[in-house]
């Protein structure tokens, strides 16, 4: 029986995905649940597992194609035996070189005469070029723009061409490299510009003395870890302080939709984490219901999944407020950009021993600057400043966190 392999349902906010890489070729046998193909969306890479064991009989959508939920990607013939051996190495002249193929293909790609000539001339393989023609075919224009952006193709001279002149130029290494943004990067760019353009963003600063938080951590570090199996980090203090402050100033937890303000009676906090693929903001839900340990466990979980690239779409959607910590990279002060449709974002920074005046004496204290960027359309300066002061007060006297005062 043949089964259509389809793009799985995409979440509401995601309209389409790009097919990044096939892991299987036509004719290859697969076992059930084996990953067949990677789809990159604005937010995550989705894997499409084989629904049954069998053989791939047809690949419908090639690498680089934009797909929507429900699109047929390939046809799988159910059964254990492979119909025919995988496509053997092609004898096409363009493929005889050792040029690294960046994309897996489902066999030799048929190309037009001009494309064949260009590929031959530059010792390229059609599989290396993303096709924009009908049904993803590679056009002459595609190869030309590939040659423009790809150093290795430019530097590699054709078989018969003299190399002397080129090598001099190459030695200067004044080449440029044009790389298309990944979808994640492009989406980040789009959302940041959107925020810049649509919100009335303003940033207020304060600083917090973390002496008490540090001593609490020092005192209970071992027992906390022993009991809960997770380190007691700074982030849980900040998250809990943020939630208490949000309760006092609900508008900071709200979002704008046209001319309405939507107040959220729950506290889903996004924590910005960096991953190899770019910035991600996994959301930890109902933080007000969580203990410090619950929060640290949840944070560890999403952070590690973000790093591994296995984070799910649900982990990245929603959120009523965001915390970003530039301090882990050494930032002293910054003005974060809103994670829309949220209306505020807290920026944490590096902790530094600085001379402070305490009770008339100058003493060294572990200090951190706090930044709160807020949407001035709905949050007044007074509320924003008081919100930040409330966080500062709780962190400088963590007993307040316990007593909720």
């Amino acid at each position, binding site marked *: 029986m043949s089964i259509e392999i389809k793009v799985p349902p995409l979440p509401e906010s995601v309209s389409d995905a790009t097919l990044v890489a096939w892991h299987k070729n036509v004719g290859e046998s697969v076992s059930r649940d084996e990953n067949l193909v990677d789809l990159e969306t604005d937010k995550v890479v989705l894997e499409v597992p084989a629904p049954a064991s069998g053989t791939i009989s047809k690949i419908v959508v090639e690498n680089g194609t934009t797909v929507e939920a429900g699109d047929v990607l390939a046809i799988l013939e159910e059964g254990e035996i492979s119909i025919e051996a995988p496509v053997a190495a092609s004898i096409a002249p363009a493929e005889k070189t050792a040029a690294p193929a960046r994309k897996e293909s489902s066999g030799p790609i048929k190309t*037009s*005469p*001009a494309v064949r*000539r260009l590929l031959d001339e530059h010792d390229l393989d059609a599989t290396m070029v993303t096709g924009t*023609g*009908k049904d993803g075919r590679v056009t*002459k*224009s595609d190869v*030309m*723009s590939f040659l423009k952006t790809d150093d290795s193709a430019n530097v590699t001279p054709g078989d018969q061409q003299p190399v002397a002149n080129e090598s001099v130029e190459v030695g200067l290494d004044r080449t440029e490299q044009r790389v298309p943004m990944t979808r994640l990067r492009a989406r980040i760019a789009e959302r940041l510009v959107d925020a810049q353009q649509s919100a009335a963003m303003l940033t207020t600063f304060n600083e917090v003395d973390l002496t008490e938080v540090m001593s609490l951590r020092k005192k209970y570090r071992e027992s906390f870890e022993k009991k809960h199996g997770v380190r007691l980090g700074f982030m849980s203090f900040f998250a809990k302080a943020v939630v208490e402050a949000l309760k006092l100033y609900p508008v900071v937890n709200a979002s704008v939709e046209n001319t309405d303000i939507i107040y959220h009676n729950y506290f889903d906090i996004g924590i910005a984490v960096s991953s190899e693929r770019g910035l991600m903001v996994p959301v930890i839900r109902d933080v007000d219901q969580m203990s410090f340990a619950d929060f640290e466990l949840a944070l560890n979980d999403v952070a590690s999944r973000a790093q591994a690239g296995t984070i799910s779409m649900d982990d990245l959607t929603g959120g009523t407020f965001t915390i970003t910590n530039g301090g882990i990279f050494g930032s002293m002060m910054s003005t974060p950009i809103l994670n829309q449709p949220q209306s505020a974002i807290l920026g944490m920074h590096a902790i530094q021993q600085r001379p402070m005046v305490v009770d008339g004496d100058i003493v060294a204290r572990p200090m951190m600057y706090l930044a709160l960027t807020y949407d001035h359309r709905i949050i007044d300066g007074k509320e924003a400043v008081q919100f930040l002061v409330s966080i500062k007060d709780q962190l400088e006297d963590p007993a307040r966190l316990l007593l909720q005062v």
Partner: protein
Amino acid sequence: MSKTFDVVVIGAGPAGYVAAIRAAQHGKTVACIDEWKNKNGKNAFGGTCLNAGCIPSKALLESSELFHRAQHEFKKHGIKTGEVELDLATMQKRRASIVRQLTGGIAGLLKANKIEGLIGHGKLLAGKQVEFTPVDGSVEVIDAKNVILASGSSPIEIGIAPFDDDKIVDSWGALEFDAVPKRLGVVGAGVIGLELGSVWSRLGAEVTILEAMDDFLFMADRDIAKVAAKEYRQQGIDIKLGAKVSAAKAGKKGVAVSYDDKDGSQSIEVDKLVVAVGRKPHTDNLFSDDAGIHLDDRGFIIVDDECRTRVKGVYAVGDCVRGPMLAHKGSEEGVMAADLIAGEVAEVNYGVIPSVIYTAPEIAWVGKTEAEVKESGRAYKVGSFPFAASGRAKAMEQTAGMVKIISSKDDDEILGVHIAGPMAGELISEAVLAMEFSASTEDIQRTIHAHPSLAEAIHEASLAVDNKALNFPNK
């Protein structure tokens, strides 16, 4: 109990009947409603295209072309004929017979695809119900899961020259003259006006075409329009540009036509006047007020790129929606709508639709004109090749015209192909296919074209784009 269909198509022109067939191929139950009535009072499928447009006009163009050539070109070939005589009645009978065969063919196709052909008026109601008023019988309401509106278009009538079905006629009327008018006036030098003007000019009429615009064939490439204007005038067609008709009065003998041009008020006397100033979408009584269908300010049914109206499951295709009023555009939209209904992925590439004018020389083009490319700001290169340098065209004694190709300077992509010359309407398909596949000029250069053939002119024009033409000096 009312009937239910998966798909009800209103209109059996080239958009509607094609949509119905494709929907049936997808296993849907389909009804196709049509109310076209010919001048003999008989109903027929096929819409304007088959009954009153593309097909009958091509039949007459072919006949009149042969008549013209027998009169004027046979001598050159060394063929003596004596006096060539016109038998218009037979010519018209042949035209009618072709139309009858083809419209009958559609009835057969509908039947073969198990489509219920319903003759009468269809009207979309709210909730995807269709009110069907048969030619004879009582009104019934049909339930449809999907509806495709393909109601077509009709000739625009102008107040100053209303149709009287005798001396002042529309394009359909001009196909059915039973005698060659001595003097024929045509309002509008568009595709229809030029084709009809050519037919009657070849058959002996003195043809004057009045065109309100100053530019001849404004939608075509300027180089092509120039060649065409020269050839038409040489054939004896008097094309007056910038001539705005101000009045037309049908008298006992003929029609007095007044118009204004740059020299002031003018008038001509003709025996028949064809008004071919364009066509308007035909949506009379096509849907009820609460059906949810909206028209734009020009009367077209509002649809998205995939021909969806604002009502889920209701599509509109062909001349009654935006885009060029061309049968092949309508057919492709019909196929797309049926495929979308079946849950398949489908699209129409509106950037690559060929246009053809079946005059002599034929005019055909696809993609952008040089002026459009220039305006887009894209750097471009141009190559052209005259049919005068083509062996096949010479052998055919049809050397007027040329092939012109416009390509992107940066990446060699073909942006537009324009042909004036013999069989241009056939030759253009190569260019359409190439552009559909985003081909470069080099792709055509590297494709072998048979010798001797007219298609070689396309090959040579592609070479000329890079100054590599072999059979013509490069500039």
